[in-house]
């Protein structure tokens, strides 16, 4: 069974903590140590960011980490080389999150095949809309047992949420607010109402909230009605400040 599916079913009560980081940041060879430390710190799932020159949906923190990673010489090929033996050391679900163009250039099928060989369980491609996925790529994802993860936002219509739900095989990535990544405002009544509204829709796929989660309070608010939450920019800021030291210290503050 795919590790993401397994993790989602394991313990119905447990709220999942997922962490995003940009591969190749702050140092090119940090990728594997970060993944290992995150697992040791009790993180449930990891999203490995494939850096891109033009990350449209990201705020300054992830933009800058992507620029640094690219300057450090990160490439798709190099990421797969770094991850070659990752399944000897790590057993939690691993996803790759990246924009579509680098994947297209690598070759979508070749990319998916490499993911399978490496032990990647799912893909989050923010600029690959669900329609294009269903039309052109679903069979390839299936063939290599990769779960597609789609985003919804507070503006996504109910009808569209249902369509996305039926195309989803793992979880739905619930974007917390109308914003690029790295928001620092915390969650108000509007977000809470949105978390509640969608959680009452009776969807098949569990909801995992991302964007703007940075501490214990926002983690708790985000997961009150959902299965889990994803932290990205706040973790990147930790890496900027402390390098790869004391990753457990960061996750301990969250929950």
């Amino acid at each position, binding site marked *: 069974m795919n590790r993401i599916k397994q993790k989602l079913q394991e313990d119905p009560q447990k709220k999942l903590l997922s962490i995003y980081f940009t591969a190749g940041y702050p140092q090119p060879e940090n990728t594997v140590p970060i993944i290992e430390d995150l697992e040791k710190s009790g993180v449930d799932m990891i999203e490995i960011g494939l850096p891109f*020159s033009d990350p449209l*949906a990201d705020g300054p923190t992830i933009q800058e980490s992507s620029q640094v990673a690219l300057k450090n010489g990160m490439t798709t090929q190099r990421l797969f080389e770094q991850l070659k033996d990752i399944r000897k050391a790590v057993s939690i679900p691993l996803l790759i999150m990246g924009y579509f163009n680098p994947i297209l250039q690598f070759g979508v099928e070749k990319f998916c095949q490499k993911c399978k060989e490496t032990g990647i369980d799912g893909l989050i491609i923010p600029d690959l*809309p669900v329609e294009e996925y269903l039309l052109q790529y679903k069979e390839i994802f299936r063939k290599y047992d990769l779960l597609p993860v789609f*985003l919804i*936002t507070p503006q996504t219509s109910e009808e569209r949420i249902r369509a996305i739900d039926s195309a989803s095989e793992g979880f739905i990535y619930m974007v917390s607010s109308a914003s690029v990544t790295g928001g620092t405002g915390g969650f108000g009544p509007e977000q809470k109402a949105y978390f509640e509204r969608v959680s009452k829709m009776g969807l098949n796929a569990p909801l995992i909230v991302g964007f703007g989660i940075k501490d214990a309070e926002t983690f708790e608010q985000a997961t009150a009605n959902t299965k889990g939450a994803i932290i990205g920019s706040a973790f990147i800021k930790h890496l900027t400040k402390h390098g790869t030291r004391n990753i457990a210290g960061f996750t301990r503050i969250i929950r």
Partner: protein
Amino acid sequence: MNYQVNEKGYYGDFGGAFIPEMLYPNVEELRKNYLNIMQEESFQKEFNQLLKDYVGRPTPLYYAERFSKNYNTKIYLKREDLCHTGAHKVNNTIGQILMAKRLGKSRIIAETGAGQHGVATATVCALMGLECIVYMGEIDIARQAPNVARMKMLGATVIPARSGSKTLKDATNEAIRDWINNPMDTHYIIGSVVGPHPYPDMVARFQSVISEEVKKQLLEKEGREDPDFVVACVGGGSNAAGLYYHYLNNEKVGIIAVEAAGEGVLSGKSAATSALGKEGIIHGSKTLLMQTQDGQITEPYSISAGLDYPGVGPMHANLFKTGRGEFISVTDAEAMAAGLELSKLEGIIPAIETAHALAIFETRRFKEDDVVVVNLSGRGDKDLNTYIEHFNL
């Protein structure tokens, strides 16, 4: 063959809407409504009235006799430089501001490179009393100071794009991020036939007034609607799309697209997308773009800020791939020389973007009785500093 967009938003293999979900509601709203709104009688009336009374259309189709004689063929210039604000860009911003109003939007955002599209957007926002925010690369702000001042006089807020390479592509990224952050009240006026469907088609339709007029004007002057060739410079491709529009599916009319070679196609400092680009995705559209082998978008170079874009609209990518369009690239030096030549022979100082289209006659020969229409997309006022430096004027 059909070279127009199909019902799925594609030109052949190119186009589509590769956008993050956050943009979906706004892009979908536009997609569902743009054709209906554009076909409304009240929209047509207001659009045409403004093009006439405010922009100054129709723009002349001018037979450039001395320039023609020099190249031994018949060259007509479509005088978009005489549009209000000095370039074709305003045809699109007039259309889109009316669209935004009908969609109930109160806040306008735009990206700009040289500042021409920014000025054209700030102008229509002043005209309609809407808030206007223009994203512009920090580097472009420094080298296009007069246009920054114009935008400010017109009441727009100019926000420097400090990410990435700090030029047009990054200004576009910032505008898209703004739209993600402001999903309810904002319309994004994109400046060329780029971006996710329906933008390329919508912008092409607003610019199509150019070839609509050429057909009538040429009938008067030459007794036929169709020239032998239409020639335009291509940055994103909007002035070209406007000139080609009514001739796209008429294969008797040759289509020539002129790209900026910068210091030479193989110099490493170039913006010749068709020569250097590969298929990929930029700003929500599947098209040709300049990128590394790893799929990272690269920074183009041209002396002309308006052609300094690493992609090209999907219509043009398809014209290139199918062979319907003939693509020629012109270096900085060739373009500058052509700009000076037109000034001396015809008393018209063209924008440096436009000068690229004029430069092809040095190498591309036409028959004596060929009728060639060149889109004179903009005037050279904004480029005086570059001309001064280049020619030590």
